[in-house]
């Protein structure tokens, strides 16, 4: 297993390098931190030129990339080009923490709900519950997150709140905490997380429940399950001990993969809900031409995807010892 992990690590480094080159080139191609200064009549051309020099933008692209890479491998993420020299790491760290909280709640909650729904659907195959779950799941999979987010905002923030006569709404439509809040308040944070988590979760629950249903149906038809039944075990024990445990393998893999992708893929959700996470940081850095922040966020996201996927593979081995043996 150790060799397997090391092997995966070795293949990741060139991938990360390729990503950094592509992002660096792309960011410098499409955006410039001094763009808005170009047409500002209060800024003299010589001042602008001096400022670009100050930011190091006068250097050739390749030179700037090597300098960035050299610093990056030594753990120095550099300074922001648009935040007057602020260190990049604290900026990324804060966004990362916010995103991880959002993902953790969404994935864990969705996993629990998806597994429960999928199990019930599989056990009661063809029943009303199964059909209803199937219909709702397909609906959940079909609805785009951005549309769902907007609908949730309108429903909870506007229509329901107006109907109840509550202003501002119980579930806020944007932000990390209530305006004016100056100390940490768990309930307030959870209220602000509710809608983005819901927007993210609906699709995840739908996907996980479908995976769980089909996986459990496959497992339940295997010989060892029939043998367990033949030994006279209670159906509940058969389902939980022999069915669900084995059926969890593909679901957990999917969840781990989703979690990794979500780290960088929350752009839409975070934008819609004005949530200050990695997705919004990425967009702001991209459009602001702040390539040190952009590169740091992309590299950390890519690394997170890799780590989570690797963890999923390892976890897969824990659930299924045959995979551990294969890895050896």
């Amino acid at each position, binding site marked *: 297993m150790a060799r397997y992990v090391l092997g995966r690590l070795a293949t990741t480094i060139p991938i990360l390098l390729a990503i950094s080159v592509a992002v660096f080139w792309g960011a410098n191609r499409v955006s410039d931190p001094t763009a808005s200064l170009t047409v500002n009549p209060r800024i003299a051309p010589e001042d602008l030129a001096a400022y670009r020099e100050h930011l190091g933008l006068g250097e050739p692209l390749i030179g700037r990339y090597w300098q960035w890479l050299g610093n990056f491998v030594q753990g120095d993420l550099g300074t922001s080009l*648009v935040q007057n020299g602020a260190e990049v790491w604290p900026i990324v760290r804060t966004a990362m923490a916010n995103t991880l909280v959002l993902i953790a709640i969404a994935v864990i909650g969705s996993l629990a709900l998806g597994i429960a729904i999928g199990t019930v659907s599989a056990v009661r195959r063809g029943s009303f519950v199964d059909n209803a779950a199937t219909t709702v799941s397909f609906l959940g999979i079909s609805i785009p997150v951005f549309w769902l987010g907007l609908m949730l905002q309108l429903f*909870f923030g506007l229509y329901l709140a107006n109907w109840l006569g509550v202003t501002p709404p*119980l579930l806020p439509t944007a932000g990390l905490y209530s305006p004016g809040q100056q100390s940490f308040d768990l309930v307030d944070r959870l209220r602000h997380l509710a809608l983005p988590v819901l927007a993210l979760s609906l699709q995840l629950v739908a996907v996980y429940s479908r995976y769980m249903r089909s996986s459990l149906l496959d497992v339940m038809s295997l010989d060892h399950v029939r043998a367990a039944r033949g030994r006279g075990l209670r159906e509940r024990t058969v389902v939980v001990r022999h069915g669900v445990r084995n059926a969890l393998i593909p679901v957990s893999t999917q969840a781990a993969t989703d979690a990794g992708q979500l780290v960088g893929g929350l752009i839409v959700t975070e934008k819609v809900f004005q949530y200050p996470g990695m997705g919004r940081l990425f967009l702001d850095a991209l459009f602001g031409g702040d390539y040190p922040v952009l590169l740091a966020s992309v590299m950390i996201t890519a690394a997170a995807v890799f780590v989570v996927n690797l963890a999923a593979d390892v976890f897969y081995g824990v659930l299924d010892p045959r995979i551990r043996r294969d890895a050896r």
Partner: protein
Amino acid sequence: MNQPPTRRRWAVVVIASAMLFAACSGDSSTSDAAPEAPASTPAETEVPAAADSASGGTLVLAVEQWPECINPVTSCANATWTIWSVLIHYLPRLMELDQTNTYVASSLLVEEPTVANGGLVTADDGTFTLTYRLNPEASWSDGTPITSTDVWFTWRAGLDTTGTLSTIGLDLITDVDHSDPHTAVLTFSEPYAPWPTLFSGLLPAHELGPDTDIADQWNDEITVSGGPWIQEEWNQEQHIMVPNRSYWDTERIPLVDRVVMVPREDTDSELLALQTGEAMAAFPQPFPGARERITGDLTYEVAEGTYMEGLWINQDAPDRRFDMTRNVRQAVAYALDRERVADIALGTIVADPPVLQCTGWNPGFGPWCQDDFARYTQDAAKVAELLEAEGWTRPDPDGLWVNAEGEELVLAWNTVAGNKRREDVQALVVEMTAALGIGWEIINYDPGELFQNRLPALNFGPVALYANSTNPDPSVANLYDIDGVPTEENERTGQNFTAYRSQQASDLAFAIDAEVDPAARLELVHELSQILADDVPWIPLYILPNMIIWDATAVSGPGAYVSSPYGGFFDMFDWTVHEE
């Protein structure tokens, strides 16, 4: 009509909350507040008179663009919202714009410097002396008097700070005499007419000094205020301000207890925050359909903004098929029905949007803008006369004009891809000029490509549709400086993006900057304006409006400074909130 909350409604809330988070149901503040929630819709709630609710409460404002940092000298201050949401509320000004966007002495000055009172003196050797007499009662929020040393420090910080951006004007100052605490005497190397634009944010020497490089200070905290507000907190999630109770300008001591600004970084989010009651006012970019979308308790005010939009004609366009001569430029101007263009661009925001009739001066500021361009109304006969005078013919009466070399009058036209307003304008102009024999080849770019790569390299057009910012001061030298045309020789510096090379216009533009007598300056401005209307370096279309929206049931007072370069939140010291 809404009914009082019922058990059924609360059951819905409880179920919905339980589905999301069990923890949410324990929010005592919301569950406690619910039974006391108003039984009527906001529309049914009477708006209290301002006098009845003249103090107290928290004002929550939605801010469209959140500053990345708030240092008043570095690139942080280039973001308009750094000024609108932060600096304008804390930093005192020497001269300031009133509600009519005219520069007047601020309460920091005893009087406005004029030629008559000896405040403005042009010496025989060409130097220019400006004397500010400071109000002795003025002080920073920590009690330290505001003195001429602060003027000196602000000047030096503007020049000495690492990464300083705008040194225009400051670099002409050779000395600031601050020997008398209440008198600052500034010496310029030459007359500088836009002097009122300088020192629009005075810095406290005692707080930031003695080092005049302040790049590492005040990036996320303004520790001392010389304005109506004191900063309590600023971060990427909110900005909290409380009144400066010791502000010497007692008429501007705020009426509310607290202001909280929160980021809502697009128009839809701002509008939603206002509709849901999560914010009370916003100062968004005007958006199409505003007149239909702002309904219910929300009200809004629209006025001229600070960006002028038009067709900028690049006389050096590398891909031009013929020279963009004065006749061709005038013909294009006569081919347009600019009233229809303004209406298609802004008609859903404001009724009967006015057409901009001058190039460089915003009608909302001072007396500078005359109607020199009013002659350019759609006129097919004029188009024909101008083009025929240069040998253009129209072999097919329904076709395009063709020059002697056989080139059709087709103009490449760039703007920002995806900008609906501008794309609507393009579609209309293509349609309206087709009958007059002028064709267009539309090639749009993303903003980065157009503004960063093509504009500075004059690699656009020959026609581009975009907006340029205007200044209350009639200084337009950057636009028409004959040496400011970006070229290989000057390493693409300069902002004369039309490549308009008129020595007379360029000289006049610089003369305007050097004329400190307002009446004489106005004459120069009008003289230049007439030349520009004859030469048509670009075709003005309209001024983009500013807009402020507020919930009339929650707040009173917004709307007085909509067109101000200080932003619509400038006068929030006069606003009141209606608290239940």
